[in-house]
């Protein structure tokens, strides 16, 4: 197969189908509209179903019903829409239903704006909804990676029975790049979905999809069961890209679109003879703490760059664990950091001016 020039949001749609998704439930919101538009046309062609829900709240609850029926189902939205879905996401996590949620992040808070942003890091990695739960959160930085992650997301979610979130931004959604959509590389040994509500057919006891445990001892047991799965995910699913980390005097930390801009700044620094590395988390949860262990002791500092006023910086500090100073540079509201500005921040750290 050859590469095809595709738009980010359409890559999401096609790769979802490639990953076995047959049901999409969503509600229009900019800047992700091409995802439902694409899938409304494509899903019926592969025997699937697209439903435009009355709201984001209804859409995520339709996903609950479909996932509880054993189907591979997804929804997509953007920041304020994801906020509305958080109730359903919490129930889905509690009921251990696999599904994929795409968030093409836009500026906030409130109605915010429609330009690219990374201000939903907290919303993605800190629960968002109520309760002790986690999502597996991927943040691709190019469209080929988006295609590969999206293609595998349903398999991963089915394996752990934990919902997966794909965190992009308006730029990932709108940009065009050549992409090859290939069958998922990582094949997992998936158990049968014998918990799904498909009708007893008179052959088994009723299945119940539920997140209610009125007995506190049982709820704690359920939480511990989830925690065990989360530990398993932490041990096996961490993904990141590390660039010249060992030798660097400054290590930048950035994800998604921002990491590409940071990479440009790093290249320019290298031309000036500076040693600058990059840690690019691909999974935002579980966070790649281990990537930081390769940083040299006398590294002058970490520079976390985000399209927000500093959200991932918390995880950078946790990963640094006091070993190096952590600095932050960010633009927000839909404004994009410039390589030149990032370069200046790097130089300030090297000169000890920060």
């Amino acid at each position, binding site marked *: 197969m050859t590469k095809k020039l595709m738009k980010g949001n359409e890559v999401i749609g096609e790769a979802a189908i490639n990953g076995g998704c047959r049901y999409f439930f969503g509600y229009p919101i900019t800047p992700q509209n091409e995802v439902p538009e694409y899938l409304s046309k494509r899903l019926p062609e592969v025997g699937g179903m697209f439903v435009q829900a009355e709201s984001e709240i209804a859409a995520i609850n*339709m996903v609950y019903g479909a996932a509880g029926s054993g189907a591979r189902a997804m929804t997509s939205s953007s920041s304020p829409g994801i906020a509305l879905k958080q109730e359903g996401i919490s129930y889905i996590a509690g009921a251990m239903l696999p599904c994929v949620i795409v968030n093409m992040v836009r500026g906030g808070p409130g109605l915010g704006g429609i330009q690219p942003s990374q201000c939903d890091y907290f919303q993605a990695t800190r629960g968002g909804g109520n309760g002790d739960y986690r999502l597996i959160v991927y943040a691709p930085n190019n469209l080929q990676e988006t295609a590969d992650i999206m293609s595998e997301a349903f398999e991963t979610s089915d394996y752990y029975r934990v919902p997966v979130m794909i965190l992009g931004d308006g730029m990932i959604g709108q940009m065009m790049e050549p992409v090859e959509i290939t069958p998922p590389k990582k094949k997992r040994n998936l158990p049968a979905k014998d918990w799904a509500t498909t*009708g007893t057919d008179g052959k088994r006891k009723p299945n*119940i999809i539920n997140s209610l445990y009125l007995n506190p001892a049982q709820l704690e047991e359920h939480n511990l069961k989830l925690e065990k799965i989360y530990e398993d995910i932490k041990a096996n699913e961490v993904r990141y890209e590390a660039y010249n980390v060992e030798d660097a005097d400054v290590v930048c930390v950035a994800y998604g679109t921002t990491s590409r801009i940071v990479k440009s700044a790093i290249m320019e620094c290298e031309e000036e003879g500076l040693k600058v590395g990059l840690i690019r988390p691909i999974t935002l949860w579980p966070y790649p703490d281990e990537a930081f262990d390769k940083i040299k002791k006398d590294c002058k500092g970490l520079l976390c760059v985000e399209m927000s006023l500093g959200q991932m910086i918390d995880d950078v500090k946790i990963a640094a664990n006091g070993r190096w100073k952590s600095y932050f540079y960010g633009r927000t509201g839909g404004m994009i950091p410039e390589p030149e500005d990032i370069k200046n921040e790097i130089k300030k750290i090297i000169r000890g001016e920060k």
Partner: protein
Amino acid sequence: MSVVYQKSRGLTDVSTHYCPGCTHGIIHKLVAECLVELDILEKSIGVAPVGCAVLAYDYFNCDMQEAAHGRAPAVGTGIKRVQPDKFVFTYQGDGDLASIGSNEIVQVAHRGEKISTIFVNNAIYGMTGGQMAPTTLIGQKTTTCQDGRKEELAGKPIKISEMLATIDGAKYIARVSVDSPAHIRQAKKAIMRAFQTQLEGKGFSLVEVISSCPTNWGKSPVEALNWLRDNMIPYYPLGVYKDWEAE
């Protein structure tokens, strides 16, 4: 002698948590009896609400999903779209369906979703301790309208059956009561009809069941049914509001 009435096998052996005299139990068994008599229990997936019937998933002897408050019609939609050959019903109270879930119930009807809804209207929030519901009658006292519901503050009680009957996708809408054996027999007929509406692929169906809440109304079970007859039925007239065959 032969058995003419016994506990339906559409219900599990679990003893319900409902208060003595709560009519949820009557409605549960009507639903269960209809599922068995239509021979669809084994292919049924029910959706339980949030409210007094939250534990319905322990009582119906078929596959069940427990939905977030008011979202049962959306959950039911997801189930039915994946499994169009299965039978899907939601069981919801008045807070769940007529308040927080009013958008979901209107839209599920509007889409003509082929699912059936049992709507239990007892004019109060039961599980949370007797607060005012959208269906609470004018003058009825609850813990959040202690001098009685006032129209100028809370509007008049919402009439769900009348409202949903105006929607094209709703193919069978009826309001029944379970205050007497005669009304219970009629209620069962309506539920059968609603379920057949789905089985024949006609569209959305709903049966509103006027029901009692002795505990939160502060009445004995028998007094509660008398109050229902004297106060609720006059405001919520019983009858079939829409039937696809009549159209």
